[in-house]
């Protein structure tokens, strides 16, 4: 097992395209780090750079304290599971799992012991003589994992390993991967575009966009304290409701946020240093759960909205509505509120939503970064 350190890693292609720009982070020994981001954000490229399948054009990749920039993949002691599994079609499951052991020239007895141990770990014993084309998607996935694990690598890379599976199987294999990682304690880097997968799997999650690392943190940190509007909008399903507005403190010291015709008083302690009278333009972010249906005894500010549609998920209802904003572009993107399933809400009528002002996050409209001093004095 080993830690992986990325130091100002950059990847620029020959045509000048910057795929990865100055990424620095550390994956601790035994940690499961998930890289997440939209298509084309560079997450798979970053994995390939760690694997050695592509060469970095700047910075250093350190595995187990050793700079591996110039080492070929086979000398990095890193294993990888590919999106399409890349099983060798002409070999049996046994042949696939044994292949890396043969390349390592392990003694026959040791190779057999490892094969049996890994096959048992992943429940592949009955399938050892089958060929990949005879296996289901989930079984192929497990064979790919076994082939990677059998080498006992220092680091284990997984490139969107669940994207070819159906939703039910994805959930099962996800749990298996997590359990496997906990049992083996292998350092893992896992790439996905599915933020739910990222949040449920990762000890920490690294969010990438446009080849630039946006934020690294636990799922809870990313959700509760996104560093910019990209992370705020990308993490969470449904996404955070973001809108341009102003905040202003009155002469009594109360801070208000404009939401169309509503002036919503904010819960302390937003911007204790903000002087009275000055209207500060911001981007405000409200998670769907910060907007809830009024059930008679709601405390705090309330806004009136026109319901566009209702998604009943059984355990909750998602209320989709156009934001109560006036003018500008903000009021064309629907917002979402989470409500209790028993609440009766009908599309096409007005309803009242309570705003949990303690959970509003503000961002700088100039660069989209979270306003750092909103909570501190």
């Amino acid at each position, binding site marked *: 097992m080993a830690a992986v350190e990325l130091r100002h890693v950059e990847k620029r292609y020959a045509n000048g395209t910057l795929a990865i720009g100055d990424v620095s982070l550390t994956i601790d020994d035994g940690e499961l780090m998930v890289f997440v981001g939209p298509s084309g954000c560079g997450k798979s490229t970053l994995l390939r750079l760690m*694997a050695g*399948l592509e060469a970095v054009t700047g910075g250093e990749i350190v595995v187990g304290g050793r700079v591996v920039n110039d080492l070929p*993949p086979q000398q990095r002691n890193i294993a*990888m599971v*590919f*999106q399409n599994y*890349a099983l060798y079609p002409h070999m049996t499951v046994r042949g696939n799992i044994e*292949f890396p052991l043969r390349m*390592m020239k392990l003694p026959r007895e040791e190779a057999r012991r490892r094969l049996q141990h890994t096959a048992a770990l992943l429940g592949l014993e009955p399938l050892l003589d089958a060929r990949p084309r005879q296996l289901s998607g989930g079984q192929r996935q497990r064979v790919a994992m076994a082939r990677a694990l059998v080498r006992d690598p220092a680091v284990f890379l997984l490139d969107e390993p669940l994207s070819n599976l159906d939703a039910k199987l994805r959930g099962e294999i996800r749990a298996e991967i997590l359990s496997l990682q906990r049992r083996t304690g292998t350092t893992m880097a896992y790439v996905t575009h599915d933020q739910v997968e990222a949040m449920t799997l990762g000890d920490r999650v690294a969010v990438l966009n446009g080849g630039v690392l946006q934020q690294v943190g636990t799922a809870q940190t990313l959700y509760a304290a996104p560093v910019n509007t990209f992370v705020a909008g990308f993490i969470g399903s449904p996404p955070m409701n973001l809108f341009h507005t102003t905040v202003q403190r009155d002469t009594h010291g109360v801070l208000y946020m404009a939401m169309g015709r509503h002036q919503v008083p904010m819960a302390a302690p937003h911007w204790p240093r903000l002087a009275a009278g000055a209207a500060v333009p911001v981007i405000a972010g409200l998670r769907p759960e910060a907007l809830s249906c009024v059930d008679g005894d709601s405390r705090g500010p309330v806004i009136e909205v026109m319901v566009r549609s209702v998604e009943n998920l059984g355990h909750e209802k998602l209320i989709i509505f156009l934001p109560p904003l006036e003018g500008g572009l903000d009021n064309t993107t629907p917002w979402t509120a989470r409500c209790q399933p028993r609440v009766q809400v009908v599309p096409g009528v007005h309803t009242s939503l309570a705003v949990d002002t303690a959970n509003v996050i503000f961002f700088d409209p100039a660069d989209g970064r979270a306003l750092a001093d909103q909570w501190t004095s």
Partner: protein
Amino acid sequence: MRPVGGSGLLHWAKYTAWYLFTASCAAVFAAPVVFMVVGSLKPDDRVLAEAGGWRAFVPGHASLQNYHDVFARVDFGLFFLNSAVIVGAIVAGGLVVNSLAGYAFARMRWRGRDALFAAVLALLIIPFEAIAVPLFYEVSLFGWRNTYVVQIAPFVANAFSIYLFYTFFLGMPRELEEAARMDGAGFFHTFFRIIVPNARPVFATVTILSFLMFWGSYLWPLLVTSGPAVRPLPVAVAEFKTLPPLKWGDILAFGVMMVAPALLIFVFFQRWFIRGVVSSGIKG
């Protein structure tokens, strides 16, 4: 490709017409081979006498006398061995050289790759006859005339075979090679243990095409050989025809023995060959 749609009598009529048409085409292509096989079994005087009618395709008084005559009149075994050695070496050497070249063009990055590949493609349009004389001059300088080498060396590397391998390897998932590299395989392990076993269709295609191309090769062996010692079957059969007395039954028997290996190779590799042509991106 066959007619679709329609029902009842019309459907039946369409299918009948279609099968009659395809059977006629097959008959046209098969007729020379059937004539050759049947004629090789007939007494010599009946071959030409029956050549103008349907009897040409019906074996009467069949015997293997013509085959016996061929072996009695010439050293057929030597010519066959010569052809087998020459074509075997071209095919075997070609599979190694051209597959590696196709792989290098398809998968590896190196300076001058695109320019060299364009040059290789350009070779496809140059007919062999255009370079035969300068090539003859060159091999004469090497002192290679009247050897096996002169009939093998110029043909091992083949632009068309390289192109077939190139298109096939281009279509193979890159992740297979990357997985092999991650598993610790070097270049040759990856190529011979992962790529080659998964490229059987294109290997079969190239084997058949190369075999057919060189098994019937006539011009070059005629230019560079001057005696029976290294002379292959196509040149030998032409000489056999001029050997008195002129016996058509013997010539046809010689022809059957010459064509048989090509037919066997095709039948043996047919399944892979068809798949290879499709997966090489060349519609057959």
